[in-house]
């Protein structure tokens, strides 16, 4: 099955980012396809490479980057939401790209299921 994923909350503050990542990994392991992960609202904070969690904690941003590298998952950050929150090309982590909201709608059209993670 083809999944589109929407992440609406920031890392570490809210479990949505963790749940979305774990869902993606589980879906890929079962042979499903992730059409796109779209980051919106505070979810755009998943994409900043300035993130430095304590050593003994999971690195949410690097985890996403690895997912993109290993599985070719398209990680898209909403440009309007990103600029509002200071996320720009120069502080974007690897594997992410900045684009418009049209990418979310397009993913919804292409996927069999769109799954939202957030409040």
């Amino acid at each position, binding site marked *: 099955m083809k999944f589109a994923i929407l992440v609406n909350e920031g890392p570490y503050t809210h479990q949505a980012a963790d749940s979305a990542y774990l869902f993606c990994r589980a879906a890929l392991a079962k042979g499903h396809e992730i059409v796109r992960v779209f980051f919106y609202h505070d979810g755009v904070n998943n994409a900043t490479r300035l993130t430095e969690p304590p050593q003994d904690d999971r690195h949410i941003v690097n985890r996403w980057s690895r997912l993109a590298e290993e599985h070719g998952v398209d990680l898209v950050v909403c440009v309007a939401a990103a600029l509002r929150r200071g996320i720009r090309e120069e502080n974007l982590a690897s594997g992410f790209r900045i684009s418009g909201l049209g990418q979310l*709608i397009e993913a*919804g059209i292409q996927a069999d299921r769109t799954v*939202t993670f957030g409040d």
Partner: protein
Amino acid sequence: MSEGTIKKFMYVNRKAPYGTIYALESLEVVLIAAAFDQDVSLVFMDDGVYQLRKGHQTKGIEVKNFQPTYRALEDYDITRLYVEREALQARGLTADDLCVPVEVLERAEIGRLMEQQDVVFSF
């Protein structure tokens, strides 16, 4: 999935208009979605019904009043706005208190509508 696919997209608005950014950013998605020629409808429930409550005044909190955008939805051919009856009643509101024409539906009817959708975004 071919280029010409038309899916049923529903946007569910559950949050008060100010206090968090969800309502404003949801509206931004809806406006972009209008350009994709999809089947679009909006639902307002819980505190989301306050998004349509006439007479927002935001000067005191120094936030932009985006209520005029709801009135512009018609220009984008977005005309299906559903409001949950129970949410209005719980807040002492009626459809007359709202800034745009809407269809008021029981919670169960909205549930049935949701079942018919291809994509449901909840903000």
